[in-house]
Each structure stands twice: as C-alpha cells, then as structure tokens.
C-alpha cells in the first residue's frame, strides 16, 4: 500500500467525513461555550481578586493559583469520574465544559487583572472626580481600556481553550478527535486522523494569524 493510500485515502476520508464534521461541530460548540463562560467568570474573578473584600480576594487568589497549577486532563478526569461518587453526575459535554471553563476562568482572570492594572491611575481618578460610581467607572472608563490592552493575550487564551477541547475525547465526548480515532479504528486506516488534524488547523490557523495581527496593531498604536 502506498503512502498516499495509507495517509490520504480519499474513499476512507469521504466515508469518515460526516462523523468528522459532527465532531468538529461539537468541538466548536464546546470551545465556544467554554470561552464565553470562561471570560465572564474570569472577569468576575479578576474584579473579586482586585476589589473584593479581603476574604473574597484571598479565595479568588487561591482559586486562580490552584486552577493554573492543576493539569486540565487531571481536572477533567476528576470531574467526570470522581464527582459521581459524591452524587454529582454530569454528561461528558457538561463535564468537559465545566472543567475547561474552570481553568480558562483562572487564566482569563489573570489576563484581565493585568489589563486593569495597566490602566493608568489618572483614569481611575478622573472617573472618581466626575462622581462615577465604582461599577460605572469600571463599565465606562476602565474596562473599555483594559479590553483593548488584553485583546491579544485574550485571543491567545481562546486558542488554547479550543485546542484543549481535544482532551474531552478521554471522557467519551464525541468531539473531533474522538470521532477521528473511532473512524480510524473502523476503517483500519489513519486518514481520518489526518483529516481531523487538518480541520483543527483550518479553524485555529486563522485565529493564530489574528493574534499576530492584534499584537502588531497594538505595537503600532502604543509607539
């Protein structure tokens, strides 16, 4: 059997394509849910870490440190295989979304914290001086500026989250990777794996380009 037939077998590819596309859809869905949930909770965690009452700040700091230390795969296995022992049973999709969101939240919180801290002190003072409440000065003055600062690292984090969704295949999530390994077993041919790798690249390469674009844009604007 030639190399082409082994790795780029057209009929195997066509046969596996529906399954691969189904997996791609689940990967994108899981990624999107985790990214959005991670950003919202990450922002709240950053605000708690920076401005909460002291006990809340401590809790937020510990959460961020622990979740950035634990390997995602370990957390995922804990959520899916260990939690049922205490009566918490979640589907593989929810387990994966929860685990990925928890980790993404910690990273996003650190990104937002750095962004908020990079907004000059004078901006906070000017907002205070016109009488804006804390929430409004965040909403209208500080966060719009912080968002601009953190767009490149935030996009970078989105890429990591999307890539991490592949780990969900270990908890029997029929995501892109899982579909590909199943199709490979079925056809006794690695072409579906190549196809999956290609599909990952198809969605992630543009995002990687986007980060580079943001970064060079950011450099231009700050010089």
């Amino acid at each position, binding site marked *: 059997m030639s190399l082409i037939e082994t790795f780029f077998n057209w009929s195997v590819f066509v046969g596996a394509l529906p399954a691969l596309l189904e997996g791609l859809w689940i990967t994108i869905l899981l990624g999107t849910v985790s990214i959005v949930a991670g950003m919202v909770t990450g922002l709240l965690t950053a605000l708690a870490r920076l401005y909460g009452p002291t006990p809340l700040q401590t809790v937020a700091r510990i959460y961020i440190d622990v979740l950035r230390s634990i390997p995602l795969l370990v957390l995922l296995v804990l959520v899916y295989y260990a939690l049922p022992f205490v009566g918490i049973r979640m589907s593989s999709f929810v387990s994966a979304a929860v685990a990925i969101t928890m980790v993404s939240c910690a990273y996003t919180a650190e990104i937002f914290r750095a962004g908020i801290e990079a907004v*000059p002190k*004078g*901006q906070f*003072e*000017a*907002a*205070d*001086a*016109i*009488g*804006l*409440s804390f929430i*409004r000065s965040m909403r*209208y*003055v500080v966060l*719009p*500026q912080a968002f*601009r600062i953190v767009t490149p690292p935030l996009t970078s984090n989105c890429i990591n989250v999307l890539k991490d969704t592949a780990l969900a295949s270990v908890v029997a999530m029929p995501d892109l990777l899982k579909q590909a390994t199943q199709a490979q077993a079925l056809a006794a041919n690695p072409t579906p794996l190549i196809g999956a790798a290609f599909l990952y690249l198809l969605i992630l390469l543009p995002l990687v380009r986007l980060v580079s674009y943001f970064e060079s844009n950011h450099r231009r604007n700050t010089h």
Partner: protein
Amino acid sequence: MSALIQIEKLRKSYGVVEVLHDIDLEVQSGEVVVVVGPSGSGKSTLIRCINLLEEYQGGTIRVDGNKVQRGADLSKVRAEVGMVFQSFNLFPHLTAMNNVALGPLRVRGAHRAEAERLALELLEKVGLAAHAHKYPAQLSGGQQQRVAIARALAMQPKVLLFDEPTSALDPEMVGEVLEVMQSLAKTGVTMVIVTHEMGFARRVANRVVFMEAGRVVEQGVPELFFNAPKEARTQAFLKAVLQH
C-alpha cells in the same frame, strides 16, 4: 453664610510622615483662590483631599455643608466638585464630546441628546466645538486640557479644582488654557487653583494662599501678597520665583 469649602484642622500623612499639618482654609462661593508654594509643600495633596482622591487622617472637610468622607454620599459630593488634572486624564477611548458628556449621562442620568447638547455647548465655550469628534490622542496638550475643563464643567459643579493645570504643557500652550480659566473666573465660578503661574495668580485670584512644608504660611489679596508679603518665608519664595 457659611463658606462653600470649609477645611478644619486637616491632617494627612503617608505612613509616619505627616505632609499636611492642621490646615484651616475656607473658600467662599464665587471666590477664586490660588494656592502657591514650593514643590512638596503639600498644595496638590491639599486640593486632592477636597474630593477625597487622597484620604486624610484628621480634621474635617465640608463642601456645601456635606462632610467629605467615604460612604454612599461620596459620589454626590464628588459630582459637585469638578477637577482638572496636571496630566489631563482624558478618557482616551472616548471622543472629546463623549469625554464631556460621560458625567451628565452616567452620573446625572441625562438623556443622550441633552448630554451631547451640553457637551457641545461647553466645548464651544472652551473654543473646541470643531474638535468635538476627535479623540484625545488627536489633540494638542492645550486642547486636551481645555476639553478636561469642559468635562469638569459638565457636572455643573459648585467648585472647580485645578491641580497644576499648565505644568505638563508646552510653553506655547499655557496661554490658551489660562485664558479659558480666566474667563471662567469672570463668570463667578468658584475655583481653587494650584499653580506656579504667578502672573496668572496676580491677575485672576481673589486671594492667594502660600503653603510651605504642609502648612498655610500666609494668605491675602494678590496686591498685598505680591507687593507686601508679611512672612519671611513668603518673601524668600516670591523672590526666588519672580526673579526670572
């Protein structure tokens, strides 16, 4: 009638270092008070205490009878005290118009159309109506500071505080900012101004306050203050700054 700003026995320290010692100062409604003194004399710190950008450790400050302190009423007090900063501190992500309109919109809850009309009116007043759509980065330092003055005015404050408003400006832009301030003073706005511009103080102030090492050393009307200062330290300071 009681004074608009009443400062009594104000003490402020950074850690163990006390930078303001028992300051007493009153500002009447409509008065223009210029605070002068050497760098590090505490004059900026003093006016930053008036809207609690700096916490103070002792004494009281009242604005229009309301005590300036942490708590639910702080935003209300701050809305009545406009401030212009040395480094402008315009919001870089908003146009000149939106910088000015933000306070009316988000503090006083005005409608957008009303807030924008007011903003345009105030930008007109500081001579920048044609630049309303520009972002701060597209404006010169002097223009930015004039927008900042319009922004402070937009809250229709009872008093305006100026913290060295011309110190960060290129020399050729100082005049346009002082001009705007002078015309404001004529309209009866209460102003407390920290500045090194002695000529401006002489022309515009109703009263000049001289601070040194965290104390008010001397105060008086400009003619007496500049021509016949009583205290030796005032004389030394004036001699140093007026010589060149």
